[in-house]
């Protein structure tokens, strides 16, 4: 049933956010630490169990695929609710701080990518 997939997804997310909140309060920060990442790892773990313990029916899978496919529209809705005025209202300093952080971080990606095994860099351009 489709709801099994949706429910499984919900379980992974709630479990991940719960653990992320626990980690946050354990190390004393007022934030969720990696909750969604933990939820993703949990889902990956469960979906890679294969035929051993957990059998995903095609309908169960489609309950997860639906939300995966809704990802881009949801992100578009997210863009439409951003506080763009707030971003622009901070003046030059806030703008420069944000732009500077993005530009330098972009530049560092190829540098750090060198530390992954060369064979694993996939179809990246010859650099």
């Amino acid at each position, binding site marked *: 049933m489709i709801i099994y997939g949706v429910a499984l*997804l*919900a379980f992974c997310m709630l479990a*991940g956010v719960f653990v992320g909140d626990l980690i*946050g309060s354990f*190390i004393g*920060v*007022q*934030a*969720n630490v990696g909750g*969604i*990442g933990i*939820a*993703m*790892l949990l*889902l*990956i*773990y469960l*979906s890679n169990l294969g035929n051993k313990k957990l059998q995903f029916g095609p309908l169960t*899978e489609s309950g997860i*695929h*639906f*939300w*995966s496919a*809704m*990802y*881009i529209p*949801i*992100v*578009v*809705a*997210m*863009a*439409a*609710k*951003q*506080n*763009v*005025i*707030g971003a622009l209202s*901070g003046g030059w*300093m*806030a703008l*420069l701080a*944000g*732009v*500077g*952080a993005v530009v330098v971080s972009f530049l560092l*990606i*190829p540098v*750090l*990518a060198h530390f*992954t*095994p060369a064979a*694993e*860099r*996939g*179809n*990246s*351009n010859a*650099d």
Partner: protein
Amino acid sequence: MLTETLTAVLSKNALITAFLFIGFLMWLSYFLSEKLTRGQIHGSAVAITIGLVLAYLGGQYTGGSKGLADIAIFSGVGIMGGAMFRDFAIVATAFGVKTDELKKAGWIGAASVIIGVALSFFIGALVAVSFGYTDPVAISTIGAGAATYIVGPVTGTALGASSDVIALSVAAGLTKSVLVMVGTPFVANRIGLNNPYSAMIYGGLMGTTSGVAAGLAATDPKLVPYGAMTATFYTGAGCLLAPSLLFLIVRALA
């Protein structure tokens, strides 16, 4: 009477209205992408850009902070694009990811989170110093804002920064997330953002969940789970490091 009834129906069924509206926006965006740019600029990149423009217009029209979602009939856009549905969809993208790929780039992905937080923090701090700030609390708060717009206020509150400095840190973080959304597809090829490994590094360095989510969606949706995975640890790491270690470094230097 007709308009009133229609407005009432659209507002009462806000989330459903959002499905229709975003669906239309997606169609329009893919149409424009095909006709105006011959697919050069990805449809989702067009959609995200239109979304941001609408957010700007909505903010200007209502004076609120939730962009288009502050207009009653579009309030469902705020639900659909809120953190709950966003995170649910992000988790769903992880379905089918192979664990091997994560393991191979695991340590560099983890390292990129720490490097990313420190890098954005010190760039924000440098900008603050160059604008004449000398108080280590203000410098650290603005630096933390350059990490994400959540790390900024959390750090500012922890260190006791003034509310206008906290507002600046939020603005810096918002600028970062908007720029990552719009800029990523344009630089993706040049910075080698075309495989799971660089996507994990990208997520770790950028850290803004919304920026990374939209940036990768507009570049290559297949990379989303990898970038989102590392980005999700960034705000937590930032809230941990900025008010403690990074603040102590700033205070020692200032």
